[in-house]
């Protein structure tokens, strides 16, 4: 069974050399990146992993989203990466690396299976980013969307069939 899902990509954090965007699902108050952090309040079991994720994001804001800092996830070439965490290694936060200056964050959570494909919790987040990567590539090709320095310019509203 599928349902139509509507969402947009919006700017969440802006830095001198990089912009952090995130997916914002229609009808939701927060972006997916903010919803991710909301799942891990201060004092939760994963404080240290969240600290690593934020410290890593802050370093990326400073140095740029160089390819070598990412762990590829999803399918080959779709640009979906996972934030590398070397502590506990349980929490996953997914993002789409469009360039050294543009990241689009999705959601994530605690790993509950060997691969994201086997995880009922994480698979929807990765699939959403894979589809978004496909939509963006196609819009860049037809000229309805362009990446200019650290900005994504054009139509940032999307619709997809979501598996239920």
């Amino acid at each position: 069974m599928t349902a139509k899902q509507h969402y947009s990509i919006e700017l969440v954090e802006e830095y001198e050399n990089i912009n952090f965007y995130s997916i914002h699902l229609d009808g939701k108050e927060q972006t997916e990146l903010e919803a991710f952090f909301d799942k891990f309040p201060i004092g939760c079991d994963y404080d240290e992993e969240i600290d690593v994720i934020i410290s890593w994001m802050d370093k990326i804001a400073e140095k740029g989203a160089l390819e070598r800092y990412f762990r590829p996830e999803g399918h080959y070439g779709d640009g979906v990466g996972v934030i590398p965490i070397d502590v506990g290694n349980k929490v996953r936060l997914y993002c789409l690396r469009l360039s050294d200056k543009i990241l689009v964050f999705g959601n994530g959570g605690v790993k509950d299976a060997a691969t994201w494909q086997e995880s009922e919790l994480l698979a929807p987040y990765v699939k959403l980013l894979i589809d978004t990567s496909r939509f963006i590539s196609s819009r860049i090709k037809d000229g309805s969307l362009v990446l200019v320095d650290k900005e994504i310019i054009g139509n940032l509203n999307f619709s997809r069939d979501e598996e239920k």
Partner: protein
Amino acid sequence: MKRSSIIEARRMHVNPLVRQNVDLSFQIVDRIHEILVAKGLKQKDLASLLGKKEAEISKWMRGTHNFTIDTLVSIEKALDAPILQVVHQESRYPVCEFEPMMANEPLSPPEP
């Protein structure tokens, strides 16, 4: 510049030690990357020099790996280049050499 209030609120509580670890890890991997580029080597070359899989080296190079001294020494040896340098006390607090020199100088005989 735009910031998310939710992320900013969480950012304020990041353990400074974790931040320092990640910062040092980035410095280490950037230095390793710099040596590889200077020597015309790839991560897979470092993997074969260390007898490891490329995936493991790639995992180290993402900025959050907690390097052990053993690993750092083996990388320094494999690449024949220094990665970390220890700061010695003398270089942090330079001593004034003028005073001891004066004290060691023989006293001149008084002017006639």
